[in-house]
């Protein structure tokens, strides 16, 4: 919460400057941006997960979607799990399953396993059809479904993910028009033109 308060105070500060000066000077704005970034850089304190779970979940999210750390995936799952017993149970159980499976296969906790060992385990639980040959993977596969879904949600709703997917809307336009090259592309490929 400390970082949020700092940020809020800074935003109030910006509003105050804007009200006086009519606009924020570039140097002043750069200063405020640095201050905001510094305030946000204060270490996040997990609520739902202990240190080992946090380390494991952060690593898992980043493997699922490279960039998920920047997209705030861990913080998102932590917030929701701290307010939902169902989600907390899914993640506590799933992370414990993942570590146990990693120890069984690689003799190391998930975060301590080599990237290749992690990949070998993830390749097993990232595909539903693997339960056909190994029914004991069921809990891991179901957990991975949850982690994938929520990591994807967190990443693609973050500034990083929205930029990555290429979304360009949610801004004011004087006129709405569809780029001709896009329209031509779709019509030509559909054979409807």
């Amino acid at each position, binding site marked *: 919460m400390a970082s949020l308060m700092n940020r809020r105070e800074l935003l109030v500060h910006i509003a105050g400057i804007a009200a006086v000066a009519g606009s924020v000077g570039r140097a002043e704005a750069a200063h405020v941006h640095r201050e905001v970034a510094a305030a946000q850089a204060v270490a996040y304190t997990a609520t739902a997960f202990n240190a080992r779970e946090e380390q494991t979940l952060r690593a898992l999210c980043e*493997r*699922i*979607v*490279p960039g998920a750390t920047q997209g*705030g995936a861990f*913080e*998102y799952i932590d*917030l*929701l*799990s701290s*307010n*939902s017993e*169902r*989600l907390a149970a899914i993640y506590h159980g799933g992370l414990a399953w993942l570590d146990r499976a990693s120890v069984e296969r690689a003799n190391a906790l998930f975060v301590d396993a080599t990237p290749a060992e992690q990949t070998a385990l*993830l390749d097993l639980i*990232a*595909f*539903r059809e693997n339960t056909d040959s190994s029914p004991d993977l069921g809990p891991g596969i179901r957990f*991975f*479904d949850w982690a*994938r*879904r*929520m990591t*994807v*949600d*967190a990443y*693609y*709703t*973050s*500034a990083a*993910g*929205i930029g*990555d*997917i*290429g*979304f*360009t*809307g*949610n*801004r*004011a*336009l*004087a*006129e*709405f*028009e*569809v*780029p001709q*090259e*896009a*329209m031509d*592309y*779709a*019509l030509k*490929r*559909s*054979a*409807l*033109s």
Partner: protein
Amino acid sequence: MWPHAVAHRGAGSDGAAYFGGGSNYFGAHAGGYQLPGEPYTAAPGSKFRWFRSRITGGRTNHFGRIFFRFSDYDFKPYSSDGLGTDWPITYEDLSPYYDKAEAFIGVAGTREGLRSAPDGIFQVPPPPRAHEALVQGSCRNLGIPCIPARMAVITKPHNGRPPCHYCGQCSRGCVTASNYSSSQVQIFPAMETGRVTLINDAMARELITDDSGAITAVSYIDKVTRSEQQIRCRAVVLAASAAESARLLLNYKSSRHEHGLSNSSGAVGRFLTDSIATSVRTHVPALEGMPIHNSDGTAAYHVYAPWWELSKPNKDFPRGYHIEISGGFNLPRVGAFNAVCRRSQGYGQSLKDAIKKDYGTWVSLNGRGEMIPTDDSFCEIDPDTVDQWGIPTLRFHFTRTEHEFKMVEHMQEHFTAILEGTGGTVEPDTRPTAEKITTGGAVTHETGTVRMGNNPSTSALNKYCQSHEVRNLFVADAGPFVSHPEKNPTLTICALAWRTAEYLAEEMRKGNV
């Protein structure tokens, strides 16, 4: 607003979006199908969802801004096919009020000369999006008209409001009032006259009458202090939404009116309808790899297909429907990529590639069909339940008919043909038809629960939406609707309300009210 402006991204801090709820977070309408402390029930065997919006301007803050006139034949359904009941008014009676409402509010559209989609007073509409152009092309090949939508969104300055700036944030309440909500377009300007007092956080509980049967006051709960208040009145106009207005009338109890106020006919709460809806969705390969661009536009669809089989004989269901279109490069929100995750599985760069390839390639067609009122779909007071203010709540009965199943099958078949005409392949939907129909109430078009008519023994209101029994009682929501054409109801609510307001003013001038 961006989804990352809140830590839970719209999922709800308890993750409600993952358990079947919580999808309205970014909407400004302060409403939903479930409101804390305000229950409703469905009778055994019935399913019904009831959207309520507790905000100034009510559900005009939430609706899709789709603004259709009813057709001439829509006012004479019984005369057309022997089903339902004719309205006590004609298209010609309401047409001047459609004009007034459109001219005041501002509507984008084009004049097409189609009987199933009567023209109005229109501003220039936005052009079709890429996926909409594909649907238009496919419709053309199938002989189905697909025309610019009629939307209560202005594209040119109008009555002091600037035009749409195409930000796509409509559901949050338009910051420039370029799309229509009654709060911004009617109520706030009305308040500026100094002759309107707005009482917020007031939950109407009961209408109070005198010995002559006229309403003298409205009793309401001040939700902030949880105290009961009364406001005296010369006349009352209920515009609480169809079912809520019916609830207020049904909750009135006296020795004189044992079935509720203005309900000697027994019509209050009856003849409840919602649009008949189903969807077909498919991936359209032609859209794969298209240069990503801003497709926000006016948020809802820019083109639609009005009903096209008006004169076709031997259909196996009565009446008709229209087709709405969705797709485009939408702002990613929680759940946006669930389907591609389920399909492609995996993780890492391959998952990201699959998501990017899939983005903006899905198109869905959504039907909105006419439901014919029956004796089996209605709302009544639940004898066992009250809300948090002690006000008895509603219980809904909702029964589907064979006509509706047939219409949904027709929709499914034609939506599939249209989508496949764009080059997509629709996966067969093997569910029983009953499961393909959107749950009653979920389209948020409840109508008919305080219907109008010339016969006081079968209707609650006269042709001016004035109670047959209580001279100073009027209803100005979708309660007065006698039938529920496939056209979305809001413009007709506005036009009827305007007509009722003129009538009320004249009756007050004459001293009749």
